[in-house]
């Protein structure tokens, strides 16, 4: 599946300053693996030592937090849009 991934500013150094990249992936776990292949080093930033998405990283599929879907197992289809967003304070 071909999906678009929006890359947050702190990670754009790894994507040659690109804010949006295209990746072929079947689910979120696969997506992280594919990102790592294309942009080595990115997985360590997004995932902890056990390969789980870090607790301060929010991943959204078409604007829905993947923790409300199937987390890393959330499957993807052509044209999906993924955002990776650091946690933000507020109130």
């Amino acid at each position, binding site marked *: 599946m071909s999906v678009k991934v929006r890359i*947050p500013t702190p990670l754009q150094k790894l994507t040659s300053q690109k804010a949006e990249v295209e990746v072929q992936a079947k689910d979120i776990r696969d997506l992280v693996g594919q990102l790592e292949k294309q942009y080595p080093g990115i997985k360590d930033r997004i995932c902890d030592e056990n390969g789980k998405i870090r*607790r301060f990283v929010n991943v959204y599929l078409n604007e829905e937090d993947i*923790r409300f879907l199937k987390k890393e197992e959330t499957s993807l289809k052509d044209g999906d849009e993924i955002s990776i*967003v650091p946690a*933000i*304070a507020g*109130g």
Partner: protein
Amino acid sequence: MSFLKSLRCRECGREYPKQALYVCEYCFGSLEVNYDYDAIQKVISRESIAKGPKSLWRYRDLLPLEGNPSAGFYSGFTPLVKADILAKELDVKELYVKDDSVCHPTWSFKDRVVAVALSRARELGFDTVACASTGNLANSVSANAAWAGFKRYIFIPHNLEKAKIVASLVYAPQLVAVNGNYDEVNRLCSEIAAKYKWGFVNINLRAYYAEGSKTLGFEIAEQLGWRAPDHLVAPAASGSLITKIWKAFKEFDKLGLLENKLKTKIYCAQPQGSSPIATAILEKADVIKPVKPQTIAKSLAIGNPADGYYAKDVIQDSGGSAAIVSDDEIRDGIKLLARTEGIFTETAGGVTVAAAKKLINQGLIPRNESLVLAITGNGLKTQEAIQEAVGAPYQIEPNLDSFEKTVMGSEKKHPETVR
């Protein structure tokens, strides 16, 4: 003199320059201000603080600025009310209300964080400030940015209380109501913040902004005669306030400013329908599960709390606990505080009062030790939430007979008030 050294990742400890940065490039942990405490130790004392202005700027040595403040000159230093009638109702010995419902200029504790954020925004050269808000922050950024002369973009969820919308619009910001909940507004804002070079108070200025909340804790300790209370109940949305009140007590302790040994237990108050932090604490869970908020306490309607893990750590480290209260308990809490202490707080304050009542009744807060309630906002902003619950005025004709028949002959009893 400035004691602001650098920014540091709260997760991995990596250091960053004191710029408008908010997240660690390596692990996405949030950045925290790092001070030169040795230098602060040499200049700070109870006397030096007491000589300062009657505002949050009396704690300036412990706030993240390089020069002089340029916003929020009159914010903070709100009353610490000895709440004897409420204490009697709740059957506790020593109770205080920290009353930020009268914080200048927009009647919530957010005036503290915004005073710091906008002063720092000026130092960093921004001419435009922005925020994502559940309402109180929107009011405060709108007002303070007007006073300080910034352009201002304010993003809110579309379903906020009317008073919170009017109390932003009146200061002529670019107010943007987003068709979504707060967490969606926040996600959008993080994308806007990446594209526009603005000072987003809760995004790229977050490390500085959040430090403003410490002043609530500093004031409580100073107003108690340089003592930290035994127990403190505070509401949680993102969880930042709880972590900063704790940090304030720890800093005072470290700098030798407290008379007593720091043993404050901190309790997290959240509304049913938006209680991801309190739920994780009560269930002793490692993971904070995000929720889709559904509560009358809209200022606490954050389902994905950025500082949730840190707030949970504070509660556990301090030996405190948490309570979750229903919409009806929130309304009762608002009315109880008003009827006993003459303070009209917003829904978040109702959450705090109701949670305190619950924790006392559960025996988690002992009845014979000092307790402070952090009341963080003003009831005039959330009137919709309780207008059905406060009754209606007597309707009479303009004559004595009508008054005596309708009012004095009424069955309705005047509530007892004995101070």
